[in-house]
């Protein structure tokens, strides 16, 4: 692999990311399965980096998952999106930051449709006024929350308590990055680093001391597939695609997988469990799985947040081997404790995975 070749591609896909004053929009899946990730992201942005990032309780889902499950028409999601944009404008913001990759892709697609067919934008404007008495302005900048963390990767590194380095060997951790398909596959220029060699997560890994592992099925979808997951009978599709990815990355022995899409870490975490349970195959060291973390979780670890504040206990794959490698202290007794140490029991430990 020739690193300079990738650098050349990266330099072709730099993205303008504004420095401050963001309007934040949440993700359905990230909130459901990785609530601490959004909490951590806002804490880092607001309190550690001192940026203005605003959230209104009035924003909703963008409808993206329902749309990509073909249950609602395109004009429905376009109107919901227009409504979100209206809330942004109403609150005096123009830098739109979303937590979800499906949303991000959908915003890009919608803006593209409106660019190509201005009459459709005008029609949606009318519908929004008719239904919500709102008027929208398109964002000046449309960014994914991982773009922001990418932008601040060096500031985060400057405040780092830990690095993506094995403290015992002094060697960098081998890190696999997984980019959500809708981040840049549809519109390569909208993503940091483009579609083929996205740099958004690579930049973080590099800044925080890790070593990138590029494996053959890196670009392959995690297999979510919307309807292919929500209907149980279809889940073989979803599982098989994650299986394909893990079989492909296994020879590289990664220590960690970092993701920027809310769904992928859930699937790549849980399918490892299913593969272990149904075939006995595991991909980490000594019967462990490979931890799959959100970029917020990794940023949090680097900045010294407590792993249990970050919600690493809600992954099916144990993160302890990773924490040990990074030299991060944790209290095993507090892993599954509730707020203020409240005892809320603990999950059954699967026997198939260490």
């Amino acid at each position, binding site marked *: 692999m020739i690193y300079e070749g990738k650098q050349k591609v990266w330099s072709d896909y730099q993205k303008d990311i504004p420095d401050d004053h963001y309007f934040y929009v949440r993700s359905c899946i990230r909130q459901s399965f990785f609530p601490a990730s959004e909490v951590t992201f806002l804490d880092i942005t607001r309190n550690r980096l001192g940026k203005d990032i605003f959230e209104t309780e009035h924003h909703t889902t963008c409808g993206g998952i329902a749309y990509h499950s073909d249950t609602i028409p395109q004009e429905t999601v376009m109107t919901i999106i227009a409504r979100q944009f209206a809330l942004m404008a109403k609150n005096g913001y123009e830098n739109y930051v979303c937590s979800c990759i499906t949303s991000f892709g959908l915003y890009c697609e919608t803006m593209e449709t409106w660019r190509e067919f201005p009459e459709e934008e005008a029609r949606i404007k009318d519908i929004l006024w008719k239904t919500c008495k709102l008027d929208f302005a398109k964002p000046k900048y449309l960014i994914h929350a991982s773009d922001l963390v990418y932008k601040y990767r060096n500031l985060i590194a400057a405040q780092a308590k830990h690095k993506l380095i094995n403290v015992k060997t002094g060697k960098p951790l081998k890190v696999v990055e997984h980019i959500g398909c809708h981040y840049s596959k549809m519109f390569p220029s909208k993503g940091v680093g483009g579609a083929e060699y996205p740099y958004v997560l690579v930049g973080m890994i590099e800044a925080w001391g890790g070593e990138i592992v590029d494996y053959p099925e890196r670009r392959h979808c995690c297999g979510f597939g919307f309807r292919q997951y929500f209907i*149980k*009978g*279809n*889940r*073989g*599709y979803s*599982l*098989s695609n994650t*299986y*394909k990815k893990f079989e492909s990355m296994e020879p590289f022995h990664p220590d960690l997988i970092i993701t920027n899409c809310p769904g992928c870490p859930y699937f790549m975490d849980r399918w490892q469990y*299913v*593969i272990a*349970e*149904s*075939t006995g195959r595991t991909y980490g060291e000594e019967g462990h799985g490979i931890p799959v973390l959100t970029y917020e979780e990794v940023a949090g670890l680097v900045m010294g947040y407590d792993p249990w504040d970050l919600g690493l206990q809600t992954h099916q794959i144990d993160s302890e081997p990773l924490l040990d490698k990074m030299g991060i202290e944790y209290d095993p007794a507090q892993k599954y404790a509730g707020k203020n140490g409240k005892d809320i029991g603990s999950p059954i430990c699967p026997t198939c995975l260490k």
Partner: protein
Amino acid sequence: MVDFGYGISPSSRLDLDKFDRKTFDLLVAEEPDVKKCIACGSCTAVCAAGKFVPTSLRSAILAIQNGLPDKALELLKPCQLCGKCTLVCPREINTRHLILSIIKIYSAK
């Protein structure tokens, strides 16, 4: 063990790494012209059996090259050896003879 109600689906992706060169060379030794096929589909278009059941010499040759000889045999099963395909092959392959050799060599395996 947990019964999830679904499992890993078998892959149908063609894997050329599975192509068996040695056995193919056996075929080539008897039928050097097999390499001349340009996949034009003339054989399949005129196939008498093909009107009723899925069979195709073109696909069978392809299956062998894609490392799936059993699929090739399956595709050639309905062949009646009428020889119409030999008449139309633009590369003058003795297709009838080729079919017999494929069956002989790959059935023996």
